[in-house]
C-alpha cells in the first residue's frame, strides 16, 4: 500500500497526542497533601508534601527525620545523593515528593526527592 508522504506529519501529530494521552493515564498521580490529611487509605500513593525537617538523623547513608506542618510524620530518605543531602537540614522547610507506606503499624513517608522552598 502506498502512502502520501505529505501526510506523515498528520500521523506524527496523532502519535504524539496518543503518547500524551497514555502518559496522562500511566504517570503516577502525585497529590498535594498536608501532614494532617494523610490517612491509611493513602498507603502506596505518591504525594507532595510541605513541611519542616525535625529530629534529623543520618545512619549508613540513610536519612531519618520528622516532617512537621500542623501534624508530624516519620520520614525516611534512603541513600540520597550529595545535592539532595545538602538540602536536608534541621528546621529547613522543604517540599518532599514521597510515597506513603506503613512501617511497624505507623504511617511513614518514603522520600524520593526534596526541594527547598
Amino acid at each position, binding site marked *: 500500500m502506498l*502512502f*502520501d508522504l*505529505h501526510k*506523515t*506529519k498528520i*500521523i506524527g501529530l496523532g502519535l*504524539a497526542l496518543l503518547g500524551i494521552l497514555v*502518559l496522562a493515564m500511566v504517570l503516577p498521580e502525585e497529590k498535594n497533601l498536608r501532614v494532617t490529611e494523610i490517612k491509611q487509605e493513602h498507603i502506596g500513593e505518591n504525594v507532595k508534601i510541605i513541611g519542616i525537617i525535625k529530629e534529623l538523623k543520618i545512619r549508613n547513608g540513610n536519612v531519618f527525620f520528622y516532617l512537621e506542618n500542623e501534624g508530624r510524620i516519620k520520614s525516611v530518605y534512603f541513600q540520597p545523593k550529595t545535592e539532595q543531602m545538602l538540602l536536608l537540614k534541621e528546621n529547613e522547610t522543604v517540599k518532599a515528593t514521597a510515597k506513603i507506606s506503613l512501617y511497624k503499624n505507623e504511617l511513614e513517608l518514603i522520600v524520593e526527592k526534596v526541594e527547598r522552598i
Partner: protein
Amino acid sequence: MIEEISFLLIGIIAGTITGLIPGLHANTIALITIYSPLEKNLGFALFVISMSITHSFVDAIPTILLGAPSEESFLSILPGHRMLLQGKGFEAIQLTIFGGLFASIISLILMPFFFSFTNNYNEILPLIIPAILFGTLLLLFLSEKKKPNALIVIFISATLGIIALNSGIKNPILVLVIGFFAIPSLLQSIFSDTKIPEQKKSFGQGSSKTALLAGFVAGLISIFPGVGPSQAAFVSKKIFKNIGKRGYLTIIGGINTANLLFSLLMFFVIGKTRTGMTVALNSIISTDLKIFPILLAGAAFSVGLAAITSEFVAGEAIKITKINYQNISKGILVFLVFIVIYFSGVIGLIATLSAAGVSLFGLASKVKRGLAMSFLMVPTMLFYLGISF
C-alpha cells in the same frame, strides 16, 4: 505530567541539534548524558529517550544532504545522494522519516509478539544469523562482474573490520564508516564538477509494506546481540531486491528508530542493554516494569514530534545546497577528519584512511561499494560462530 513533557521537549531540541552534527553517533550522545551533573530521575530518562529517538530521525539530514554519515545512517548516503542529484534530497529525507514513524508504530503493535518470541526462541535463532550473513555476502559476490577485484574488496574490508573491532581503537565502527562511505563520496564531490541541482520540497509516496518490514526486522535484531541496524538494513535489501532505493531509505530510517523502541523492550524484559540509549538508562532508572509504559508513551510522543520536527528542519536544510557544494564537501571532510582524531586518535585516522583506500579501489574497479559492508558482516559472522581474536 508537565515536568515529564518538558523533559521530552528538551530531549527533542537536543536530539535535533546532535542529529545535525555530522558524524556524531546517538550512542555517544546518550553516554555523555550519564556524566552530566543533572539529577538522574524519570524525567531525565525521558529526556535521554526523546533525544536518542529525535537524533535517529534528524541524522538523515546531514547524511543525505552533505554525505556526512553517522554509524547508523551511513547506508542512506548512496541512495540518498542519487536522489539529491535529481533535486529530490528532501524527498529522500522524507522517506527515512516516513520509515521511522511507521516502523515505530508497527513496533509498538508487534511488541507483545516479540515479548513471547524472545522468551521461547532466544537460544535457537542466533544459529541462523551466520548463514544469513554468509548467504548475503555470497550473493553479492556472485553478482559482481569483476570477481577478483570484488574478492580483494571483501578480503581487505573484512580484515580491516576484524582488526579495528579487536584492536582497542575507540569508536571503531565510526572510523570505518567515515573511511568506507563518507570520504570517497566527499572526494568525488570535491574533484568532480558535480552540480547539486536546486532541491524541490516535493512529497512522493512511501510504501507502508516496506515500513512494516522495517518494524519486523528491527524487532528481530533486538533479539540478536551483535547485529546492528546497518547490517539488518543491508541484508533486508539484498533479500527483498524489489524494494528499490526509495524502499531502502524507508527501511534504513525505520530500522534505526524502531531498533531504539525494541531495545527499550529488551532492557525491561531480559535486562540487556543493546543501544547507547539503554546503557544510559541503565545508570538512571531501575528495570521496574511499572516504569516501562511511561517510557513507551514518552517514546511514542517523541517519535511523533520528532517526525514533524525533522520534516521542518529538512525543509530549511535543503536551502544549504544553494551554497557552493564543493566548499561544503571540503569543510565536511576536514570536520570528519577532526572527529576521527578527536574520538579515535591517530590510529583511528590510519584505519579511516585504509578504509577510504579500499573503497576508492572498489570505485575505480567498478565494484559495488556495498561489498565494503564485509567490515561488519564478517566479524558478526565470526562472533556467532564463536571465533574470537
